């Protein structure tokens, strides 16, 4: 009885594909070009210092948004405590780096030089920050992931608030100086630069991409689409939910680590609920589950308040109106769940498969539907 869809399978054979190595090579070259060009433009001051600063924040919020997108867009949960992980990562990394500097014979200004020791410490610091956040993610995830929907949202919110209260109070309770308490942690060396922020962005995006395009990522997506069916299909839902949550927390911690190195001050009160919401807005506005969407909207929403400076007192009002209007007119987010793949575009060009020539192909899909 099995009739092979002959025409259809022929078509898929004829469609020319890029080899995987070429795909990765193209992307790697583009990233390298972007970094080199960026550095050069900053070097000759075409990109000003103010713009560089804003760009670094853009990079940090890209990491925050794509990491939250793992839990929100891919796992389908609604965590409202992402800022908590960010603060843990920031504090952990800042404390680690400041404490290690004397041991490694580095001064604050050496962190910007790019010497091997500084680079090692930088990497160690952000990984340490990420790991601390991941541990918190694990501690939070185990009870939280037993809950569904909005209950999960609120429990993560609760944990983040607890993290904040703990960071604010442990110094006075334990009687030593670690977090700086309510006064904040100050004097953090400026270890984040345009180059290393965007290197970390590239690595983060690469790792999230490779995770999602693998059996592990598919398991996570399956849970989002239908948890009961995923369980019945052999997906260990507890494990994969926790994994997605922990990975999300890890990268949030990395983002926080870069933040600390960029701003130089950690203020516990800034990592409350509103910061989590700000990051969530980026993800939803970009389109849930779309990495490019997260990247674009993190970029736009970080630049927007700066761009709206001209409106002075009205800028936050304008910001909120933009938010409402975008949602009313693009409820699925800017990009929906569309994700951009340069390789696919190249393949299309290779196959002369352009939108204006697609009418014919479209008709065939319609026929398929009618069948």
């Amino acid at each position, binding site marked *: 009885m*099995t009739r092979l869809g002959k025409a259809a399978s022929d078509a898929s054979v004829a469609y020319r594909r890029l080899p995987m190595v070429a795909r990765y090579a193209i992307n790697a070259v583009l990233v390298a070009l972007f970094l080199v060009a960026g550095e050069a433009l900053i070097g000759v001051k075409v990109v000003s210092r103010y713009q560089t600063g804003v760009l670094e924040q853009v990079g940090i919020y890209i990491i925050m948004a794509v990491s939250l997108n793992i839990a929100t867009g891919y796992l389908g949960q609604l965590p409202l405590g992402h800022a908590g992980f960010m603060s843990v990562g920031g504090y952990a990394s800042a404390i680690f780096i400041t404490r290690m500097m004397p041991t490694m014979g580095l001064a604050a200004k050496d962190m910007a030089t790019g010497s091997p020791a500084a680079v090692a410490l930088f990497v160690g610091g952000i990984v340490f920050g990420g790991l601390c956040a991941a541990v918190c993610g694990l501690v939070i995830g185990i009870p939280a992931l037993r809950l569904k929907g909005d209950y999960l949202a609120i429990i993560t919110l609760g944990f983040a608030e607890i993290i904040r209260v703990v960071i604010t109070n442990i110094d006075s309770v334990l009687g030593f100086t670690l977090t700086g308490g309510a006064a904040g942690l100050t004097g953090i060396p400026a270890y984040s630069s345009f180059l290393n922020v965007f290197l970390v962005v590239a690595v983060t995006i690469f790792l999230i991409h*490779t995770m999602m395009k693998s059996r592990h990522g*598919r*398991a996570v997506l399956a849970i989002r*689409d239908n948890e009961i069916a995923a369980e019945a299909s052999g997906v260990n839902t507890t494990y994969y939910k926790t994994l997605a949550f922990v990975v999300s927390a890890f990268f949030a911690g990395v983002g926080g680590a870069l933040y600390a190195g960029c701003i130089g001050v950690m203020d516990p009160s800034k990592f409350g609920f509103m910061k989590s919401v700000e990051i969530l807005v980026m993800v939803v506005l970009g389109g849930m589950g779309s990495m490019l969407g997260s990247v674009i909207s993190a970029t736009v929403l970080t630049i927007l308040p700066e761009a709206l400076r001209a409106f002075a007192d009205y800028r936050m009002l304008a910001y909120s109106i933009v938010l409402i209007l975008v949602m009313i007119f693009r409820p699925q987010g800017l990009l929906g769940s569309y994700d951009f793949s340069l390789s696919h575009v190249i393949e299309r060009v290779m196959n002369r498969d352009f939108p204006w020539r697609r009418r014919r192909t479209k008709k065939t899909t319609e026929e398929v539907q009618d069948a």
Partner: protein
Amino acid sequence: MPSEKSKKRPVLVQVETPNLIPERDLGTIPVLQAEHLGIDFGGLTAVDDFNIAMGHTEISGLIGPNGAGKTTIFNLLTNVYKPTRGTILLDGYSTAGKSVTEVNKMGIARTFQNIRLFDQMTVEENVLVGFGNAMSTHLLTDLLRLPKHWRQEAEFHEKALELLDIFDMRRYADARAGNLPYGAQRRLEILRALATGPQVLLLDEPAAGMNPAETEELMENIRQIRDRFKIAVLLIEHDMSLVMGVCEVVGVLDYGRIIAKGTPEQIQSDPKVIEAYLGKQGVK
């Protein structure tokens, strides 16, 4: 432990046997055996004293009026509900205390009465999720895109397409599962269940919403699946043409209890069954 065994069990090996007769009562352990299974919801006894023993390549049917407890039995067999009473043995191993996932890994796969696909994923990805039981790459291997990752992806890409061919669905491989026509969705659910490498396949109303022509084709496919993979199939259905056409044994459930058991012919002429379930029309 069966779960370890089943982890290593290669999926979807086509077993070459000329003999396709169900091996009931051949002295081997039944692949699925349930004894005195029962569950209560509050005051309601949804299933009571349910017994079944299935041979390794048997196709059995479960019919009964609406609300008789058929779906509930599937939920018990897959540990979605914890039984109030009774035991379930798969290939001789008890499934008591196992999670739904573990039961699937042990070898029971199912479809759902109300279709549950991974709507936003492609058809191929749906099948690949099922293949997760057989894939073995470590997270780091995948993250760093080591050669093993590529080998495995390529291997299972082929396997998925082969599986889709069973229902002539290769052309849909890149379509979003949620966009498929209804009938194709039902079939995809079956394929996903197959991909998990089961010994027993449970189908809950696979022909619901299909017209007679489609139903006939489905019937053929179910036989074919059993023959190729040598697995047991237990199905729930209200469409008598399917039940009578494909099942070797049929059990009839009413108010949570089995009221009749036997070959389709025996069932069809059982007055109890006609009264409770088939009605005059059902006997055609």
